[in-house]
């Protein structure tokens, strides 16, 4: 039998826990309001261009193309170019977006956007990621609901917990400050404003270790798209050849992606120049984006004739 003293201890701990939750939240709000973000390593509360994207997505419906994925998506698919080719496109990519966050986003916005085709940008790193960076981005920039709460509890990262709690409390007292961002373009694309070129730095060899939770979320997304009768294709956007060749098990990744459906790897299709067409090892500059998007539109015109408005 448990002694009375132990039961008293457990009761005391429970009462303290209530005190702790209230006190912790107040301290979080106080520190978050007074100190600079750089002095609070486990709290993120600076809104970015994803805030503008998620504001815009609420005003958007019935698109031809929906782009999902990481910065490779939102910096790789220029919605202005697609618009000029008569594709109504929306880019729902976000920083380091992993399938865990993509799943939340499609649960929130898929029905309203009602795309004819989903272009799901897949790259090896997001499947190896724990998804914290993207989770923070989503919590800070979007309205939080039960999906975000579930994500916070599943990911067990103190930064996510702190940021979620802070966002909830801050939402009661303050309006989110609108951030003017010239790089953000209508439709969700983020442009590189000044010309920039990759310096050709050697990339360390990387073995991609697939995160099981990411694979599970990825499969759930595909099931959900199938269930809603929405076509999708998987696309790997171009990265520099130095980066692409640094993945020691890229073949295994390509085979895995091909097993999930139509998979187009533009690293194998286009012959881009590492220095001229990229601004860093991962991202195309505007010259590269123009080439990539033109090739991709060409592909769409040939294979998906019924997509256009």
């Amino acid at each position, binding site marked *: 039998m448990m*002694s009375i*003293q*132990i039961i008293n201890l457990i009761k005391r701990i429970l009462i303290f826990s209530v005190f702790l939750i209230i006190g912790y939240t107040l301290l979080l709000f106080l520190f978050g309001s007074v100190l600079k973000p750089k*002095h609070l*390593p*486990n709290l993120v509360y600076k809104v970015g261009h994803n805030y503008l994207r998620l504001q815009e997505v609420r005003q958007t419906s019935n698109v031809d193309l929906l782009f999902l994925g990481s910065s490779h998506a939102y910096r790789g698919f220029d919605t202005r170019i697609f618009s000029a080719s008569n594709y109504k496109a929306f880019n729902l990519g976000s920083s380091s977006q992993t399938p865990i966050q993509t799943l939340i986003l499609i649960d929130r916005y898929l029905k309203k956007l009602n795309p004819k085709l989903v272009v799901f940008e897949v790259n090896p790193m997001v499947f190896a990621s724990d998804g914290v960076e993207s989770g923070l981005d989503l919590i800070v920039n979007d309205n939080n609901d039960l999906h975000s709460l579930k994500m916070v509890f599943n990911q067990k990262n103190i930064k996510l*917990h702190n940021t979620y709690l802070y966002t909830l409390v801050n939402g009661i007292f303050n309006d989110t400050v609108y951030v003017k961002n010239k790089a953000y373009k209508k439709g969700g694309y983020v442009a590189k404003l000044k010309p920039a070129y990759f310096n050709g730095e050697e990339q360390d060899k990387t073995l991609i270790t697939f995160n099981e939770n990411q694979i599970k979320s990825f499969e759930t997304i595909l099931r959900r798209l199938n269930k809603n009768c929405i076509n999708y294709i998987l696309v790997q956007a171009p990265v520099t050849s130095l980066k692409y060749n640094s993945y020691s098990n890229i073949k295994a990744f390509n085979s895995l992606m091909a097993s999930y459906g139509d998979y187009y790897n533009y690293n194998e299709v286009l012959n881009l120049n590492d220095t001229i067409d990229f601004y860093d090892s991962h991202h195309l500059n505007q010259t590269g984006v123009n080439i990539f998007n033109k090739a991709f539109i060409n592909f769409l015109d040939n294979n998906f004739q019924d997509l256009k408005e």
Partner: protein
Amino acid sequence: MLFNSIDFTIFLPIVFLIYWLLNSHLRAQNLFVAISSYVFYGWWDYRFLFLIFFSTVVDFFIAKNIQKSRDPKVRKLLLICSLFTNLGLLGVFKYYNFFVENFNQAFTFLGYHVNGSSLNIVLPVGISFYTFQTLSYTIDVYRSKLQPTHNFVSFAAFVSFFPQLVAGPIERATNLLPQFYKSRKFEYTNAVDGLRQILWGLFKKMVIADNCALYADMIFNNSESYSGSTLALGAVFFAFQIYGDFSGYSDIAIGTSRLFGFNLMQNFAFPYFSRDVAEFWRRWHISLSTWFRDYLYIPLGGSRSHKVRNVFVIFLVSGFWHGANWTFIIWGAINALYFIPLLLAKRNRVNTSIVAENKRLPSPKELFNIITTFSLVTIAWVFFRAESVSHALIFIRDMFSLDLLSLPVYSIRKLIYPIVVLLAFFVVVEWFGRKDKYAIENLLKNKFTPIRWAFYTLIIFLIGMYMQTEETPFIYFQF
């Protein structure tokens, strides 16, 4: 399993509840402690559980036979068997490569080519701690200071007791083993005190040590490119890192034991407030220092004969115990050189009381002595942290260059404000709690409960805000 992991956060309450449910069955409770401890250790690597079990079995039977035997030669032989087994395990797993490499280098230096090959050996976590703990048992039985136990389960629980299994305190059998013989009583105040000590230990580890480690690593890993003052800052960060890490572990171990009704020895007594190096060594890693005192220094003759040699041996062995590297041996030697003048001048026991007792602040002389001692200890820590002896020597040479008096480089300075504020908070709390067993033992004790709870909430908040998002192991796991 790490104390600062989610696994342990789940493990501890489950073990706690089952343990106290078994309270009326002492044998079952001890068996449960042993099993839980094996699970705790096996979480890291189950393959090395056999080493603990082997050590346990060997010392259990050897101690029983030592007591049975009347023949001094047989008793001595049995003791040697125990020493050989335990130190042999330590030698193979911890020191084999060190000896082979040095052997090769020595012969190469003499012009001979010897090809002793080193092995890819994984060092079992905590091996230096539990082998010393079980050795103390056999030696005490040999010296007739302790009756051997006939209860294998109690002995296995004593050797593997999970709160202190992997990084101490290194408990004496005379203190811990008898606690397994009698039934434990849950005491509310003791448990609450244990929780408080765990909280302070977590703060030391997750806020102080892990954040200092970021900057200590940054500076030590690129020491050739920093100014003298930046290197000095790096050494200070390492001093706080190792203190926060190791004393934090001890606090969590002692606090956890108290939840289960056990009392472990104090392992740290605010060593950075020491006024001389002798006092520092009475306050730093007390369980290891006293172990060496009782089982090596005194048998060598203590302070009665060859005291300088004996002190030197103790410090060298202590250094070598920490790791199979010349850097640790030199670290030990430097501390011996600090200590011996005090011993010869008979000033090694001048400062035995608490600094500035019953006073709020130290006197200027005390403050000067504290800063001098801390500086000496910090210089020695450079050897402890450096990759090699030459790295340490260059680090110290560059540290004492002219730019020691300049400001540390801007790229470091602009980053460290939060940790400097946290360190200031930490030092103040430690100062006001220096007469207790751990800093917050009696802090705000007589205050209104919400004030006390607000303070604990602040500590938990600081942990939540400044902890690393990746689990970071304790430094002393590698020893």
